């Protein structure tokens, strides 16, 4: 009997450890945070985070089954502002066809100082009204003008579908998007006030989550098994490049949502200095560079892996997050999940790590678990941006601890731990 107990105890110890990185415990990174007052029910944020040139940091807060919000943080006054409820801003509060629940894609700043974006739905009636005329009316193209503090609604971008992925190109003044669920490439030409649909790119589960736009306004995304497409606004043509993003072969899900693809890039950032994209793949957080100007069709190089050390070869490496940004110190900063993370759809709570990659030296560094000043954990993030002063911002889930006598302000639970959204602030050492 004592042997069995011994085996069980040993197994228990090992099982407790498998959720955590296999390497030695790393240092801790203390981060600041700002929560979103009055919006504790907001349950997710993906990609929608932009530090604009005036120091305001814009974010889109998602609320499944309800109205998402556009919010900005004024880094000069250190105050958070709720611009408004997206369904109301779309003029659809009384429509009863499904709310504007999210901004699910990147914002862009125009040369006119306006902040451009598209909206997304967050309720599909268990597929009964999935992409139908009875369900979600469709994404709106919008611009927020900080000078007037007003949002201009350009109208419906893609009937019955949301903007799953997006980016703004200030050169051609277009907001681009990949739609959910049908995976079409669409855009809104702000100058011409015209919307266009270039057709289907991919399946709903493998729509890449970031469109990369270079300094000429050429748009790149990934599709298929790590392939890359290019949209040239000059010719209005889509082409498929003979390049492959480094991806790990897809396997049967181990803790990952079954319908999550493992075949695309997850996020890319554009480096103005070298005119190169840097990105990570979805499956194994493989860091790569993509030089679109290298002849004849561009070049991709594998640079390393930005997961928490110890996960590199493991099958349960967490799905890559969207939290990648290039900071002023020429380092890429990435917030790596400690466990499969997708807010309330996470497999369980774990602490995010801050990982950096130095473009000058090629050195990857694990800065350790991200903790708030009071010791609470950052449980996961899915967006990142760098402010004009070099501050790095993330938005994600932070741990909420119930306090006796105080109402619990949380969006839900990750495993057994309550969470809410917050803006997380990291100031790289200069």
């Amino acid at each position, binding site marked *: 009997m004592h042997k069995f107990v011994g085996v069980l105890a040993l197994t228990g110890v090992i099982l407790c450890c498998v959720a955590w990185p296999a390497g030695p415990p790393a240092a801790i990174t203390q981060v600041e945070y700002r929560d979103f007052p009055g919006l504790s029910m907001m349950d997710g944020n993906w990609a929608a985070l932009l530090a604009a040139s005036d120091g305001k940091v814009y974010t889109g807060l998602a609320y499944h089954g309800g109205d998402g919000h556009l919010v900005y943080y004024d880094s000069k006054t250190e105050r958070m502002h709720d611009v408004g409820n997206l369904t109301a801003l779309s003029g659809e509060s009384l429509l009863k066809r499904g709310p504007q629940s999210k901004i699910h894609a990147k914002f862009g700043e125009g040369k006119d100082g306006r902040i451009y974006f598209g909206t997304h739905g967050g309720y599909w009636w268990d597929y009964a009204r999935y992409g139908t005329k*009875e369900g979600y009316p469709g994404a709106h193209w919008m611009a927020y003008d900080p000078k007037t503090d007003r949002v201009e609604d350009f109208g419906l971008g893609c009937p019955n579908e949301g903007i799953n992925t997006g980016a703004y190109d200030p050169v051609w003044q277009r907001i681009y998007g990949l739609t959910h*669920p049908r995976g079409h490439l669409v855009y809104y030409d702000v100058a011409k006030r015209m919307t266009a649909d270039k057709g289907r790119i991919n399946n709903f589960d493998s729509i890449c989550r970031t469109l990369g736009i270079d300094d000429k306004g050429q748009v790149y995304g990934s599709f298929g098994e790590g392939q890359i497409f290019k949209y040239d606004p000059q010719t209005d043509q889509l082409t498929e490049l003979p390049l492959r993003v480094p991806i790990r072969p897809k396997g049967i*899900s181990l803790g990952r949502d079954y319908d999550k693809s493992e075949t695309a890039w997850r996020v890319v950032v554009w480096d103005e200095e070298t005119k190169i994209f840097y990105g990570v793949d979805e499956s194994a957080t493989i860091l790569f560079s993509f030089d679109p100007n290298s002849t004849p069709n561009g070049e991709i190089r594998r640079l390393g892996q930005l997961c928490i050390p110890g996960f590199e070869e493991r099958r349960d490496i967490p799905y890559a997050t969207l939290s990648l940004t290039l900071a002023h110190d020429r380092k890429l900063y990435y917030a790596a999940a400690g466990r499969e993370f997708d807010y309330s759809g996470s497999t369980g709570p774990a602490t995010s790590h801050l990982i950096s990659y130095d473009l000058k030296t090629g050195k990857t560094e694990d800065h350790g678990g991200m903790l708030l000043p009071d010791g609470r954990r950052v449980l996961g993030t899915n967006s990142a941006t760098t402010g004009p002063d070099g501050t790095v911002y993330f938005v994600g889930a932070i741990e909420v601890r119930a306090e006796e006598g105080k109402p619990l302000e949380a969006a839900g639970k990750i495993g057994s731990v309550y969470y809410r959204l917050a803006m997380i602030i990291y100031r790289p050492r200069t």
Partner: protein
Amino acid sequence: MTSGRVQQTWRITAAFIALVLPVWGQRDKSYDFSVVSQVRVDLRDLGYPPVDVIPADESQIRSLTVGPDGRLYGATSGQRSHLFLLAPQHGYVEPLGTLADSKVIHHSLVVDQAGEVYVGTALAVDNNSQGYEHYAGGHLLKYVPAKDEARNGIRIDKPCPVVDLGIPSKGQGIYALAIDRSRSAIYGLTYPDGEFFSYQIQTSLVKIHGRVAKNITPGEKFENEKAIGRALAVDQEGNVFTSGEDGKFYRFDVKTQQLERLDIGVPAVQGREVYNRIDAWTSDAEGKLYGGTSDGYLFRLNPAKLEVVNLGKPLNQYRIRGLVLAHNGKLYGIGGDDDEMARLFSYAPASGLYELLGMIDVNRRPYYSWQGYVFDAMVVGLDGTIYMGQAERKSKLYLYYPQ
């Protein structure tokens, strides 16, 4: 404890961990969103990946047909049109080459008794007639399958070897074709004017018999479409049926060689008759015709008595764009407009029961997965497999195996 026992304990522990870890890490099955039984639906790429595949922007399948020998032919639409073949004994799609000057092949693919394939081309359809001002006209093409079945290299950039049988109607695209194999006659409709024509295979004689729609559908001032049936059916007597202006049935009487407007109308929502058309046809062994309409109704037409029975609306969607009678005696149809999510249904004529089969979702994870949202062609193979043609920028051929 002896070293042997220690080793044994470690082995047991290792085995236990190996068994438990994947289970511990695994999502429960509610995370696996599939909306169609995965036993019953699959897909094929349109060619040999990675090189000889009909590319995006050229792959919308809007025409499918099965020859007397069981070979499936399909034609694509987009920036270029391609003809392709699927021989059921092989099971893969073989591109046969591009079809010159064609961008759209809409419900216009038939095979004669000898196995020769006829294709009707068009510039565009259902686009408010844009581009037709200077269009020379769609061609009727004939493809004679090669006796030598050896693959002939990469085909997607090579022209398909076809015989050009000419332009049935100047300035008009070909909108639909049907064949009467026993009488060696092909019938067609044109776009945008809705002319009905016949082509005699033996004599190569083309004759235009009239129009199924003369006036533009009432609507706003931008409206420039006529209500032309999108499909043709040939009954056992050789008469040809479609729909036309005001949502009425039209019949080509093979004996009198006259095109007639019938008094009976295609089932429609009251008030929407003028917009309603037939999207798809099939027939049963007794000669009854079944049709699907643009309003999404299924109906049965007795072509001898000219009696129509409205069988209702299986989906909360517009259009029934594909309809076949499967070997199990049930009708299978696919519905949904271009901006909707296509759904599959079945109808059992014997019991009158519908079964809603959901979206077209092929889930072969981790190897591949793909959902189809727009479909515009459906046929049943000699072995009972139902083939469905996706009509999107990146399209595939779907196979459905009815139970």
